[in-house]
């Protein structure tokens, strides 16, 4: 009689899984994180998000000694409201009771999957986080169905024409960002171009930008200012020509974002997987506002939503988890059968309230 092998009992053994559930998606929210760090995510009120802004109008100058004040000398700066629409983001899921019961009782399954409801809530939360992040970057203010979206920094919020917040730069030139494009003709990123953006912001606003946001490709081009020609193939940093922290490369600063410590003039150069190619934005997060429309929750809902927050991440990697204080409202829709229908919703508005303190470089070659 032959001896047994595992094949003999293979089909009779139960299938057990490792205790970890490895999520493959990437819903990181780098920009949201920096806006949250600037303390600019706040509850809004009313029919829209509105901000008062002021433009230059008042003048002053020399006069004749002892002269009367003329009527034309009385003038003031102009105050206008910048008004931004609410945009509603929603994701929904439906899970059957049988599915929940089966998952809960499935021994040898990752705990995160056994808690099916919790798992789907985590996913829904991060889906909304990514949608908001995406539109904060590239949203044009309208989706393909004509519904309002956020207007992203590359989608029109940083521009020098067109109406934004109800105000037109053609009327108020201070309501314009600096754009450094090249008529659609790609060119290399150079320190000169970056200096020009910095100069323009200084001349227009004299307020320091506090981060550069760009695509991974452009970040790599910036990195090559410091590494090109120093490695075996000109692309691997064997020698650092500038070890100062204000410029260039340092050690990887932290795990959040898996970033090299890229800096320019002492400010972070932040790459973002959702940023469009060939563009680089000089941002001042002090002037990027995000408001959400709070609902009137029950005490239990408040505690639940506060503990939940809005979290972007790359799967479950704790190093990339970025929770920002945007409360998502989860609602169970009326039950009409033996499944649970859950909808997660967030109503939010974004605004750049000082456009001349920021700049965008476009038409950068990534090749």
């Amino acid at each position: 009689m032959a001896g047994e092998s595992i094949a003999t009992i293979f089909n009779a053994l139960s299938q057990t899984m490792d205790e970890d559930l490895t999520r493959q998606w990437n819903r990181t929210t780098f920009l949201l994180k920096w806006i949250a760090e600037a303390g600019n995510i706040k509850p809004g009120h009313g029919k829209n998000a509105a901000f008062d802004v002021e433009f230059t109008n008042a003048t002053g100058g020399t006069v004749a000694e002892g002269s009367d004040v003329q009527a034309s000398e009385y003038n003031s700066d102009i105050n206008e409201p910048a008004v931004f629409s609410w945009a509603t983001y929603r994701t929904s899921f439906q899970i059957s009771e049988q599915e929940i019961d089966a998952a809960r009782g499935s021994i040898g399954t990752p705990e995160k999957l056994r808690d099916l409801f919790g798992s789907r809530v985590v996913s829904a939360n991060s889906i909304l986080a990514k949608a908001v992040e995406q539109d904060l970057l590239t949203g044009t203010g309208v989706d393909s169905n004509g519904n309002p979206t956020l207007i992203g920094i590359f989608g029109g919020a940083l521009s020098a024409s067109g109406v934004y917040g109800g105000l037109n730069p053609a009327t108020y030139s201070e309501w314009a960002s600096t754009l450094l494009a090249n008529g659609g003709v790609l060119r290399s990123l150079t320190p000169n171009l970056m200096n020009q953006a910095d100069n323009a912001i200084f001349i227009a606003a004299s307020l320091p930008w506090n981060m550069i946001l760009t695509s991974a490709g452009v970040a790599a081009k910036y990195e090559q200012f410091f590494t090109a020609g120093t490695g075996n193939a000109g692309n691997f940093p064997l020698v650092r020509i500038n070890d100062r922290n204000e410029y260039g490369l340092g050690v990887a600063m932290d795990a959040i974002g898996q970033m090299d410590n890229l800096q320019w003039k002492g400010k972070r150069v932040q790459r973002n997987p959702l940023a469009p190619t060939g563009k680089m934005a000089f941002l001042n997060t002090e002037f990027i506002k995000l408001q959400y429309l709070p609902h009137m929750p029950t005490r239990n809902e408040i505690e639940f939503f506060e503990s939940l927050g809005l979290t972007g991440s790359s799967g479950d990697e704790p190093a990339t988890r970025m929770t920002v204080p945007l409360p998502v409202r989860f609602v169970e829709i009326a039950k009409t059968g033996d499944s649970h229908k859950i909808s997660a919703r967030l109503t939010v508005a974004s605004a750049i309230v000082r456009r001349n303190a920021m700049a965008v470089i476009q038409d950068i070659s990534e090749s």
Partner: protein
Amino acid sequence: MSQPTQDDFIPSAKPAKYDGQFIPVDTPGAPLYVEDDQLYTEWYNPTSQDVVLEVHIGTDPKNAAWRKAYLEATPARRLEMKSGNRIFVIKAGQTKQISSDFDLAIQRTHCLHPACTNKKDACRDLDHPRVVSAGLAPQLICKRWHKVPGLAANLDMAKAQAEQAMAAMAKANVEKLSAEMEVQGARKLLEQAQATAREALEAKARAEEAAARETKARLEAENKLQSVEQAARTKGK
């Protein structure tokens, strides 16, 4: 195609200021004084490449009329309405009229006039010299100004490329000089080695000569001694 110079530019027939014709606006019956009354601005593309302008015009989905127009628009029109960008293409060597509302987006200029009291980026005096400091297409020539604006040094790609080429050439020169110096050093070392070898050979020859002389002298002395001894033996007999 070379960049036009200031001399190539034909100024508008209309002067920058209406000298001598200005009537204060509060005079009854006076025409409205508008310094910048152009609805369209002419843009000339002096380069050999087409220039594409993505001018932001904005979106307004909360406006019922806009939304209705959007939902009824043709696919191409809807694309423009959705993106919020209007695209203009100015072919190489061509001039195009574009609404003056977009002037600031297409080019922002920086006034260089030393006596200008306007904010540098807001000066619209047609006669003031200026450089293009930002915008969607710094390579275009705006025919609004009476003097062709220069290009801010940081935006001058041709200059940047020339500087890059000069830097590369300087680097190559340094490397060439360094290589030449190394060759010279090696040649000097070779010459030194050859001289040392020659000196050693000469010293060897001198030593051999001296040794030969010494041998000869010793032989002569021995011969002399032998002959003296022989003479002594002969006398003894």
